[in-house]
């Protein structure tokens, strides 16, 4: 009975939503022309990267903090279990993973570089890096992670720190994240390089910090 009520309410909401969206006219403001007009001063050629790392870079800065925070939450809960032994793995599988991991690193670097002029960028590159770490873990080549030591802590937060430092220096110069147009491209590349490594570690950490309870089986 309760389930029917919930499903009914959800359906009613969807119908209301669709009906309301049906009679929607064109929006009062179209931001595409102003994005296109300012693209030349943004330091990158791809509009999505320009929005993410220049026009609305502040959102991205806070989003990175949100990702770091998600990882901090996992670390704060703590994982008291001991890591189990890694079971024997198919050598063929391990060999394939060994071949794939370096290739994935190259793909990540390419994605980072491509972000300036076509779809790509730090988030995609970081996700590929993280996937390679998860792959190595699942094939038993890399153990799960425990509480991070100094080097890993620098790696996890380094990208955010670089971003924050650039923001703070520019703030002293005149405005938060106000890149000088001549250096915008270089600064964005610097920020994205840092973010690629940190996002790769953070996203991998979301998996690897949680996974040592089942050893290599998880």
């Amino acid at each position, binding site marked *: 009975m309760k389930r029917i009520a919930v499903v009914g309410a959800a359906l009613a909401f969807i119908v209301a939503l669709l009906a309301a969206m049906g009679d929607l006219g064109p929006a009062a*403001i179209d931001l595409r022309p102003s994005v296109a007009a300012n693209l030349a001063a943004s330091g990158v050629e791809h509009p999505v990267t320009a929005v993410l790392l220049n026009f609305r870079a502040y959102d991205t800065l806070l989003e990175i*903090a*949100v990702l770091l925070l998600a990882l901090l939450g996992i670390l704060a809960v703590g994982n008291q279990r001991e890591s189990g032994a890694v079971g024997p793995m198919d050598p063929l599988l391990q060999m394939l993973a060994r071949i794939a991991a370096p290739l994935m690193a190259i793909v990540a670097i390419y994605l980072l570089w491509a972000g300036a002029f076509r779809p790509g960028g730090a988030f995609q590159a970081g996700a590929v890096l993280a996937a390679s770490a998860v792959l190595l873990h699942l094939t038993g080549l890399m153990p799960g992670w425990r509480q991070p030591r100094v080097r890993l802590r620098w790696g*996890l937060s380094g990208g955010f720190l670089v971003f924050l430092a650039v923001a703070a220096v520019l703030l002293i110069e005149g405005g938060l994240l106000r890149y000088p147009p001549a250096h915008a491209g270089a600064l964005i590349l610097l920020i994205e390089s840092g973010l690629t490594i940190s996002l790769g570690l953070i996203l991998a950490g979301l998996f690897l910090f949680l996974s040592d309870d089942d050893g290599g089986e998880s």
Partner: protein
Amino acid sequence: MIDPMVWLIVLPLAWACFAFLLGPGRGARPAIAGLAVQLLLALQLAAGLNDSGAGAHAIGGWGAPLGIDLAADGLSVAMLLLTQVVVLPLAIYARTYFASYAAEARYFWPLAGFLIAGLNALFLSADLFNLYVTLELVGLAAVGLVAAGGGAKQITAALRYLFATLLGSGAYLLGVALIYGAYGTVSIPTLLPLVTAEAPDVVRLAGGLMLAGLMLKTALFPFHFWLPPAHGGAPAPVSALLSALVVKASFYLILRLWLGPFAPLAGIIAWLPALLGAAAIFWGSYQAICARRIKMLVAYSTVAQLGYLFLIFPLLPTEGALQAGIMQAYAHGLAKAAMFAAAGVLIEATGQDTVEGLAGAAQQLPLTLFAFGLAGITLMGLPPSAGFLAKWQLIEAALAQGHWIIAVAALAGGLLAAVYVFRVLRQAFLLAPVGDVRPVPRMLEWMALLLAAASVLLGLRGVELMQLLGVPAMGGAS
């Protein structure tokens, strides 16, 4: 030139990161130093606002609607000031408190830093989508703080809190998406002239979704189910932070939207939040009167006190109603931080957490009980406390508009608060043989007293706060 607005966001982000780099359990010193500077920055911002009007900062130099703007009007700066004033004593309290709780303290400082950064960013943002990001920052940090190092029960409470807060921000985000679909912008100042009383249905739907999501995050009755276990189960400094500040952030956002872009649509439904607020006062107070554990009593008192904040909505066109709401946010923020801090001391000292077990505690911990009593005075609304000023303004505004029912709810809530406050005090002042009372660091007691005294004495300095609130946003709209 130092722009205090932006540094209020950058500084806590920096010390949060620094604390993480230093390692588990460390980072208290940089945090406290950072918070002291933040308090000065907030005061500087308030002084600047009184002299030269609202502040603004175009991030990246683009300006809305292409970029994101920060804006500081009287309302934002009042909330910023409250945050920094409450957090500094709590941080000093937490440093001493966590000395004996290694597991809970491991990531306290980085999580707290991100929480404060999120709150400050939320109070300063003038962009609906950016506000969503700050909501996520605040919500996730709060969940992490509740879960930190706790047992199964605490993690259950944290997960329930996580689902509630994610559902709330999800509803808010859907509302933002609909607004963007309708108008093509998420900048609040740009939206102001666009949203009119003839807005399409989709805008009403968006407003409803955002309001419902934020009410869930503010734990307004009947959405309060997640609050008592989360606030009652967390370590004392965390409970204090969450009850004093985090729930106020989503309340501030409701107020900001209600007075801002949704003002032309808000008229009819103003009685809904007021009705729920009145229900919250009665239900929360009743649960607090029945609570067995002292921290649950204080947590249910938060449910009740949040109700007052929503009584102001039908009265909002008048100046006095907004002042009453913010004064109540100050009164409750300071008093509840003091009460949770005092409750933490009582639990530490008596080694148990029930109200019954407090018998005779007043002989051993007079300072803490004095702090608890002072905070209680503010919650009851006795003069000269800030709580009295808030209720007085609320009742005055209600009677001026002939809504005597709101005045009755406010008065009844004060009486009910007296019942649960005196339940604790009566037990503590019993001339019972005292059991084992462990020594507690004096610093904990002094910080509780400081916060409680501030909640009472603020009533004498209410005029400055009211003057600050009167500073409108840039461009004339408030």
